[in-house]
């Protein structure tokens, strides 16, 4: 019974997304444009970066942009999806709860829609990246992209639940540019993030991405665990927060 309700809610959410062709087009065009233009425009200037594990690698800015740009595009698109999926959930899902759904079921259906949008952005980002850049190890490289999508999708959902949509959009831009665009970005400075960068949510996934991009052997176990920890903590917080908000609002309306 519960599984049936959940699958119905997910099917409704998917149908709602299909009715928004512009969204699907933008979720393809946005990462495709940003990644392909960035890589195509970047010069092959030599640059040395530090890998997890301490090795130094001499690469080019063009290769490096290919290695990290997908992460920035994924984080920003997934974050915005999180903001607005959460706003829709808060506006509409209390009715589902009043109609007999458990709050958790309504929330899981919304999170499934967010996961589908994020998966589309991740798939497009890696497809476009592969036209310009081949990582040394695809598995950690792809895992890093998925982790960035989950972490920033959840961060967006959290901001969408707590803030006005304008403030949430501004903050999303601010977070992605600060964390991924500057602090973790190996294109700047000496190619290795500063010590306090580890406190930001993008640190684990970006270091995992750099490891997968340049090293055929895996050295980023700690960074993978850090990213998984952020994803689990943020995902759980979003689930609990939204279930509470939807359930409480529905009780108030009943």
């Amino acid at each position, binding site marked *: 019974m519960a599984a049936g309700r959940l699958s119905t809610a997910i099917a409704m959410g998917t149908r709602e997304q299909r009715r928004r062709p512009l969204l699907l087009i933008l979720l393809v065009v946005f990462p495709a444009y940003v990644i392909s233009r960035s890589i195509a425009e970047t010069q092959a200037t030599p640059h040395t970066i530090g890998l997890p594990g301490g090795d130094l690698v001499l690469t080019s800015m063009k290769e490096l942009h290919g290695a990290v740009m997908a992460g920035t595009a994924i984080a*920003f698109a997934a974050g915005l999806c999180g903001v*607005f*999926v959460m706003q829709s959930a808060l506006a509409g899902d209390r009715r589902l709860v009043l109609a007999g759904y458990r709050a958790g079921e309504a929330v899981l259906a919304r999170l499934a829609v967010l996961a589908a949008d994020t998966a589309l952005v991740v798939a497009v980002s890696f497809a476009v990246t592969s036209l310009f850049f081949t990582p040394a190890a695809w598995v950690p490289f792809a895992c890093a992209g998925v982790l960035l999508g989950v972490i920033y999708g959840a961060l967006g959902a959290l901001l969408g639940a707590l803030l006005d949509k304008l403030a949430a*959009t501004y903050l999303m831009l601010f977070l992605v540019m600060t964390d991924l665009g500057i602090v973790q970005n190996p*294109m700047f400075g000496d190619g290795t993030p500063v010590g306090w960068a580890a406190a930001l949510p993008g640190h684990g996934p970006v270091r995992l991405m750099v490891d997968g991009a340049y090293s055929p052997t895996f050295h980023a176990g700690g960074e993978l665990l850090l990213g998984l920890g952020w994803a689990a903590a943020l995902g759980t917080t979003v689930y609990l927060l939204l279930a509470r908000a939807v359930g409480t609002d529905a009780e108030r309306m009943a």
Partner: protein
Amino acid sequence: MSAFATVGGSFVREHLRAPLTLALLVVIPVFFVLIFASVLGEFADALGGTLAGGAATSAISAGWAAAFLCGALAFFQVSSSRGADRRLAAAGLGAARVALARIAAAVALGVVVSAVAFVTLWARNGIAHPWHSAAAILAFALIYVGVGALVGALVSGQLEGSLLVVLVFAVDAFSGPSMTSSGGILAHGPTRDAAKLLIAAGTGQSSSGGEWGAVAAAVTAALAVAFGAFWLAARSRSG
């Protein structure tokens, strides 16, 4: 006139009710000018552009901050307030005055954002041509009021609209003068002329009358587009 002023003031307060929004309207320009500008020169260098030196990168960062903030703001103004604006128009204010009040609110917030960006820029580097810089930063803001309002008029979904504003911003930023080595059709974004003015003002060079004219034309076109977008949003179904 008094109803117009009251409604315009309400539209400004509508966006400043959330203290965090107000804080971000101040923090993001400061962030762009102080932090983002510090890596922008390296970034432009990687892209084969010639945007070098603290004055140029700080100046262009100030313009981009004003552009993004005002674009998103104008988009949400159109997108979030169709119902309320139609009711205001139908209640006697009229679609044209609602649209003018919306533009007045967007311009007022654009002036605030531009002022923060300008003061930060001044405090950081000093500015060779301060009034030219202030006008160019404000031009970025007003051009994006037009971009955001146009997207809001054409796109009803808020996720789609905000992604589209960001996409336009990304295309525009990449195609800015001195950012890349390539030209072509993508080298003519909406703020290209304003960016030339801003870089020139930041680095102490003068700009020609033709460049000022091009920026004035872009701003006028953007505000006309914004008026059309707000007017359409307030007018539809109002009878």
